[in-house]
């Protein structure tokens, strides 16, 4: 008898979803206790298509090959002091920010996708999710190892774990991932697989990756390209899961819409710092935040993905118009505020050079001359006291300092929203952040807001804060006065 002829799909089913069964010794509720409370209705879990077909055999083989290449590059960079190939060590300020937030983000995603794999009772989603969980472990480990190359020579990397969990600025990203970690499995899936991966990671690994290459930073170049090769799988999972929820039941639409509204806004806010990296930190600039936003978010997400979802009754995420308006402004706002905080940062902020300014004027014809260049000029006044006294007040939801402007009034009018809950007043940077709170006040009120905790005394004595954050004295201060800058210039000459 001849062997059965099977399609790839059928064979893949036997290797994955056919392994599953309906339990009889425990109830479905005991087996999947968190499947129903979010209100998402899935009538037939078997309708869900596999996002991609990877078996354990092909996974370890393909990934093993990728790893061999990656680690060879990593070791080579270390051996040949590849850090000195960079055009300018100022680029490392971007890497300091990245390592202090992304490592923790990747690690949280690793654990979160185990939760999703366990609690979404679809074998198709389960296998894709557990594979993503293993990928995320890859990303955090590779980044930890690679950033140690920099850590050996420069400040601002040596205690990323404490920066990530204790510093006031990183709580933006820490709280983003912890919001997803503490959500139900479906919200978590939309938050990370769609909101983060599909909508925003291109900015992180394509735009920033290209910028790293332009600045001859082989390390981040290597990390972003090898990471991106996994991200495409993650994006497929995000799209497939979203479609499945939308298509299974019309009652799911308003729930999914709410997830999308929340997580698009949260991811958008969290990515503000990427604008600062592209427009200010990068010594050689590839693309402005505005251009990147237009290409990856406006064209691909708002006018691309969301256009495709319209037929299902899904509309663009709330306040998307505001995000488009803000693309002219927010990187400048962040740069201006961070510039005044060199004493409480683990990286080195700086004022734009003449060359930077020329580029900014070119890229932001509408706002640079009229608004932002004037703000920087004001800082040149000899009587200007650069150091911002005290700590910034932060938004209850996104946890950025309250530095964003009223929509349509850039540069002149800081936006300020409040909500009252159980007799307490909470503060927000925007309508988007206020709405998220108003929808889940009992969750968002729990936020561990660093300035509040510092005043409460949770973080130890105020004079010892830098130590609590894991900082060494050389971590902070202006880039052009830093040890990093001096060493880089010196070493570069030695090697030349």
């Amino acid at each position, binding site marked *: 008898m001849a062997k059965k002829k099977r399609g790839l799909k059928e064979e893949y089913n036997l290797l994955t979803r056919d392994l599953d069964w309906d339990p009889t010794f425990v109830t479905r509720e005991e087996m999947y206790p968190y499947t129903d409370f979010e209100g998402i209705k899935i009538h037939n879990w078997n309708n869900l298509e596999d996002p991609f077909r990877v078996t354990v055999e092909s996974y370890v083989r393909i990934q093993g090959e990728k790893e061999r290449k990656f680690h060879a590059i990593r070791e080579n960079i270390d051996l040949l002091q590849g850090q000195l190939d960079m055009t300018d060590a100022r680029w490392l300020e971007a890497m300091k920010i990245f390592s202090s937030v992304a490592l923790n983000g990747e690690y949280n995603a690793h654990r979160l996708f185990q939760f999703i794999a366990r609690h979404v009772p679809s074998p198709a989603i389960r296998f894709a999710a557990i594979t993503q969980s293993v990928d995320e472990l890859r990303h955090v480990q590779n980044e930890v190892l690679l950033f140690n190359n920099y850590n050996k020579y420069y400040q601002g990397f*040596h205690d990323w774990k404490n920066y990530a969990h204790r510093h006031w600025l990183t709580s933006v990203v820490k709280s983003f991932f912890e919001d997803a970690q503490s959500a139900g499995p479906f919200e978590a899936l939309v938050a990370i697989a769609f909101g983060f991966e599909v909508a925003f990671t291109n900015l992180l690994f394509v735009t920033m990756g290209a910028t790293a290459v332009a600045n001859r930073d082989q390390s981040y170049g290597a990390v972003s390209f090898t990471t991106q090769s996994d991200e495409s799988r993650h994006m497929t999972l995000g799209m497939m899961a979203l479609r499945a929820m939308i298509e299974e039941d019309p009652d799911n639409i308003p729930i999914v819409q709410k997830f999308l509204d929340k997580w698009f806004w949260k991811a958008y806010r969290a990515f503000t710092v990427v604008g600062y990296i592209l427009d200010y930190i990068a010594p050689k600039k590839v693309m402005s935040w505005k251009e990147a936003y237009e290409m990856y978010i406006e064209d691909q997400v708002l006018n691309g993905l969301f256009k495709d979802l319209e037929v299902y009754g899904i509309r663009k995420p709330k306040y998307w118009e505001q995000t488009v308006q803000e693309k002219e402004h927010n990187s400048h706002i962040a740069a201006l505020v961070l510039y005044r905080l060199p004493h409480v940062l683990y990286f080195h902020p700086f004022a734009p050079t003449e060359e930077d300014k020329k580029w900014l004027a070119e890229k932001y014809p509408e706002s640079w001359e009229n608004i932002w260049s004037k703000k920087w000029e004001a800082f040149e006044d000899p009587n200007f006291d650069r150091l911002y006294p005290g700590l910034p007040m932060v938004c209850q939801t996104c946890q950025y300092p309250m530095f964003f402007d009223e929509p349509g009034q850039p540069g002149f009018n800081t936006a300020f929203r409040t909500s009252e809950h159980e007799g307490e007043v909470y503060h927000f940077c925007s309508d988007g952040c206020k709405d998220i709170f108003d929808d889940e006040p009992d969750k968002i009120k729990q936020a561990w807001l660093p300035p509040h905790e510092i005043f409460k005394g949770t973080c130890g004595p105020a004079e010892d804060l830098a130590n609590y954050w894991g900082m060494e004295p050389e971590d902070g201060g202006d880039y052009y006065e830093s040890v990093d800058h001096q060493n880089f210039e010196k070493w570069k000459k030695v090697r030349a």
Partner: protein
Amino acid sequence: MANYTQVGSEAIKPIRKTYSYMSGLKVKRPTTYDECTYNLEPKENFHYKPIWNPELNIFDERRTRVKCEDWEQFRDPSKFYYATYCYNRADFQSRIKGQFEAADRYGWFEKMDPAFIDTVREFLPVLRHFVFGESVAFMHVGRTAVGTAIEQCATYQCYDELGTAQLLTRICLGLEEQVPSILQDGKQKWMEDEKFLKLRALTERLMVTWDWAEALIATNLVLDSIVYPLFFEEMTAVAMENGAIGYAAFSQFLMEMYEYEKSYTTALVKMLLADRPENKEVIQSYIKKWLPEVIEAAEEMLPVFDLPRKAIDGKLALENVLEKHVKPLLIDELQIVSSIQTRQVWEVK
């Protein structure tokens, strides 16, 4: 070239070797494994309580009854991090592929003794569901275990178990020529056959065991330390007696998976026992709860040993498993239990 790098490294000295928090790991010189494993798990300043379990934090030591002063000190004896795990398992998969090629070339499946095929079809396709169930249980273990080093092992095991379920499926597909409905029959047996009901009941219970250390220990020191050697050592010996190389040739892969689980779990239990005496009682309670039931489940499955042409007494096979694997591990090495009893119907000599 050598000269170039030497000159560079002399003039440009690194200002530090590794991350400052690595000083918390009690090792002489951190290795690559240590650097990318130690202290990744968040432990403080959590923003929100999980909506699905508001009593506990996102990462919380209270998700198990065992306690430990510093979970992050655990080290996997295999020192697997993502890269070395992938290298190891890619090599492992190449060996499996080679074995399938040999099976094709020499007709190991086609020429298998019909009585032995009837033996294999009785349990092998059933076990793919069992292993998959363990994998699902380990998604929870991976999510909730404390400390990066421990959850990392659980993550790899979870993925390994999926791989094992896929390997078992592929072996069954190799036997499809002889038994076209092998997979469908297997699933039906898993659901209905009395021989396997007890094992399935335990698997389902394992999947809802929310104390991660209990699930880990029950799987790796109890369930797998009986099921794996029973089918992939004792049955393998029977296969050899019956000339069924096609079966025997794949058993080593299953046993290697079991050995990985066993090695890191043994190291973990030793760390916990050394950390504080109260852990012994907790771990004993896990073993006392699971061991008699797993032995009972194994006894239910013993009739499959009657099926081969040259059969052996299944009780003898189970006795061998207990003597060669379970007792040396639980009584001698870990000293968690003092004796192991089977059901009254027969006596272990």
